[in-house]
Every structure is written in structure tokens, then in C-alpha cells.
């Protein structure tokens, strides 16, 4: 499903990832942990095709990300959902429009999108605010809109980067439950987090990064 072979990513002043090899099967639930600056976001971005590895190969759904033609990237991305650490919502658009965007891009009919967006917003507890502009919302609200946008599409792979950093404990549990439900439906979930309780609650395979190196890879507690 997702395979990384000896992947390294170097930046001007630091090595974000160093010789990472990992294989994630379809339907797995993987938690990515590690201290600040360990390379978690970089790893997710590589899988998403937003960065190109400096060394090694990445296969996502049997396609080599680094060798993919520019024109094919959009179609790969449509099969994935991405919750970004810095949200990346269109600030001038409403919550509804932001969440509906991945559907519009794929040409889903108006009625279908409306229903799907409604469901996604309800799942993150934001359906009461669907007409608000995202740019002026609170951080927690924006984060939840991001999650809704990532799941609205029933993605095959869900990548989430610190999706509960701005949420209180109650909401965090709810989001964890949501991810578990999505995982139960067969979606591959890859979640980067600092929150130990999220790691415990999700109870998945845990990859621990440290200064760009994969230092441990533990299966879920039985």
C-alpha cells in the first residue's frame, strides 16, 4: 500500500529524514510519534507527493511518487485525505465550500456533495457553522473543518498531522473515535501526534521517529 525504501530528505541546514524504510499495508492504522522536528510532517508530505525524496523510493498504491508525472499527482491526491498541521483552508470561503471542494473537483453532483459535506461536518461537530468563513474561526474550529475536508471524500488513505493539537480532551476523544470508525471502514490511517492519550486510544502500530531516523516500530497492543 505505502512503501518507503531507504528514504532520505535533506534540507539546507538539517536532515529531516534519514534512511527510512517502512511498509504500511492497506487498512493499517499507523501512529507517527517523535519529538518536535523529528520529521513526522516531512514523512507525511513525502507520501502525499508534496515533497520529493532526495534518496530512496516511495511507492503509494504501487505508484512511484518521485517518478509520477506532474499531471498525475492530482488524481493520486484525490484518493487521499490530508489534515495539515497549518490547516490550509481557503480563508474567504465558508466552511461548507471548503469541505465541498474535494467533491467539486471530482465532479460529484450537487445533491450528493451536500449530503456528504453535511455528514462530514456532523462527524467533527461543525455542522452548525457551515456558513461561517473559515478565516475568522477559532483554531479548534479550523482544525475540525480540516478533518471534515480530509474525510468527506472517503479517502483510501487518510494522513493526519497533529489533528488534535488545538482541541480539548472531549473533542480529542471524539475525533479519535471518528478516526477509528474511518479505519474500521477499511481506510489506511496514518496519524502524526504528540498526544500520548491519542496514541493509546487509537491503539495502532506506532512508528517512533527521532531526528529523522526511525528508532522504533511497535505493533498495536493485543
Amino acid at each position: 500500500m505505502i512503501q518507503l525504501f531507504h528514504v532520505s530528505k535533506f534540507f539546507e541546514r538539517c536532515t529531516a529524514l534519514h534512511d527510512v524504510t517502512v511498509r504500511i499495508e492497506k487498512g493499517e492504522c499507523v501512529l507517527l510519534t517523535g519529538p518536535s522536528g523529528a520529521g513526522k510532517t516531512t514523512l507525511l508530505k513525502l507520501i502525499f507527493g508534496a515533497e520529493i525524496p532526495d534518496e530512496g523510493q516511495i511507492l503509494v498504491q504501487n505508484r512511484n511518487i518521485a517518478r509520477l508525472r506532474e499531471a498525475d499527482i492530482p488524481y493520486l491526491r484525490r484518493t487521499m485525505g490530508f489534515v495539515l498541521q497549518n490547516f490550509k483552508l481557503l480563508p474567504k470561503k465558508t466552511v461548507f465550500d471548503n469541505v465541498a471542494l474535494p467533491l467539486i473537483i471530482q465532479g460529484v453532483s450537487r445533491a450528493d456533495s451536500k449530503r456528504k459535506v453535511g455528514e462530514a461536518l456532523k462527524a467533527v461537530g461543525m455542522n452548525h457553522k457551515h456558513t461561517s468563513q473559515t478565516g475568522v474561526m477559532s483554531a479548534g474550529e479550523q482544525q475540525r473543518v480540516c478533518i471534515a475536508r480530509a474525510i468527506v471524500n472517503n479517502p483510501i488513505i487518510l494522513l493526519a498531522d497533529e489533528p488534535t493539537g488545538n482541541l480539548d480532551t472531549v473533542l480529542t476523544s471524539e475525533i479519535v473515535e471518528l478516526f477509528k470508525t474511518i479505519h474500521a471502514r477499511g481506510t489506511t490511517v496514518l496519524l502524526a501526534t504528540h498526544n500520548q492519550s491519542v496514541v493509546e486510544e487509537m491503539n495502532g502500530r506506532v512508528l517512533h521517529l527521532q531526528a529523522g531516523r526511525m528508532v522504533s516500530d511497535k505493533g498495536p497492543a493485543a
Partner: protein
Amino acid sequence: MRRPLYLIQEAFVNIRINRTSVMIGIITTAFTISCFGLFALLYGNLKNLAGTLQQDIEVLVYVQPEASDKIVEGIRQRLEGEKAVNVLSFVSKAEALKEFHQQFPDESTLLQGMEENPLPASFVVQISPQFQESDSIEAFAERIKQFPGVEQVRYSQDWIDTLALLVSYFEFGAIVIGLILAVATITIIANTVRLSFYLRKEEIEILRLIGATGSFIATPYVIEGALLGACGGALALVLLKGVFEFFLLEINASGWFSGLESVLIFFPFQTSLFLVLSGMLLGCGSSIISVFGLMRVRNEAT
């Protein structure tokens, strides 16, 4: 392009949201097209004016003093058959004498010593517009000279040459300056569009992140650019028309050039349409270049 309606809507939403930058774009486009248009207008009218002045060119065909009426009639008929002749009039010997006395009252004494009127009869030929070139007038004059009974053909070679030179001089200048203005117009519009797209870099990146194709991202911007360019062109047209009318009014008020109003012309309908269309194309083209330029770098999507 699965959802054309969405993309058009999106263009209008963009325009509504980025009102300021759209206004800036329209005004800039309008001004740059105006600069170009103003020059075109100036050029067109000066050329037109030169043409009008050239219409005053007259060729004088002097008849031999001893020529009979029949021969004079023959010359008239042959002249009327010439395509280059626009208006033809005859000045008899008597009329020539009268004119001489009128024009040179002081020199009247000159002719008093002679028993016979020494002045010849003549035909005054006004040349058709399409034959007003220096060369064709010369050829025409040479031909007329061969007619039986024609003593001499005269025209103000200098005046024609000067006018022709002035027009060609202006034409050359027009090409150079027009070219520069065109390049400036395109550069300014392209730059304006590029700047306004920097404002949307984030937006474009986000769209790419959620899997939008290049054409999906670009289409609303291209529509927006076309609308913006067309509005700019139309505004330029209105501006130019305003300046033109103001100019006419001023001329009337000052009374300098009483006849000039009738000569000055604004762009005909086709040219006006062309101006608006070229604004549209400019806007469109600049948008395409800008959006695809911004989308080129893959790593910027982070």
C-alpha cells in the same frame, strides 16, 4: 472541465472577494490600453489631416496661347477621361488677367506695356485622393504634357514632397512608438496580473493539495482575466472618447481651427470592438501565463 458552471461562478466570486485588486487590474489595463489608443487616435487623425491637406494639391495645365477652342475642348475631354482627375475647372485668358490684377495689384504696370494679354488660359485639376502620391502626380503631369495644345504643366512639387515626407516620417515614428507602447502595455498588464496572482499563491497551493488539476485551477482565473481585460478595454474606450470629445469642444471654443472638427474622427466601430477584444485577450493571456507559472514549481505546494 466537469463543472463549467462552478468554474464560472468561482470567477465571479473571486472578482467579488478581490474587489480591490480587480479594480486595480481594470484601471491599469484601461490606462495602458488608453495610452496605446491615444497614440493610435493621434496617428490616425494626423494622417487623416495630412490627407485632407493633400486634397488641396492642384495641377495647373496651361494651354498654348494660339490654341483654338476646339483644341481646348479636346484637352478638357481628355482630362476628364483621366482617373487621376477629381475636379476640373477652366480659367480663360481673360480670367487669368483678372486674377493677376487681383493678386498682384502693385505689378499691374508690368502688363500695361503689352498690346495683347500675355497670360495663357489654363485648366485647374484637383487630384483624386488615390493619386496624390508624389510619384503618380509626376507621371500624370508628364502624360498631360504630351496632349496637343498643352504648353506647360505646373504643380507645387515642393509642397507635395514635404507632405509626403512628413507623412512617411510620422508613419515611421508611429511604428516605432506604437511598438514600444504595445510592449509596455503587455508588460504592465502581465505584471499586474502576476502580482495579483502572488496574492493567490496560497489559494492555488491549497487547491493543488486537495487534488485539483491545472486546468480546474486556472479556468476561473482565466475567465476573470478575460472579464477584467474586456472591462479595461471598454473603460479605455470611454476614456478616449471623453478626451476626444473634450478636445473637439476645446477646439470649438477656441475657434482656432474652424474646419478641423469635420476632419477629426474617432475610432470606427470595428476598431473599438477590436480594442475591447484585445483587452480581453490580453487579460486572458496574462492569466494563463501567471497561473501556470505559479503552478510550475511542485515543491511550493507545501
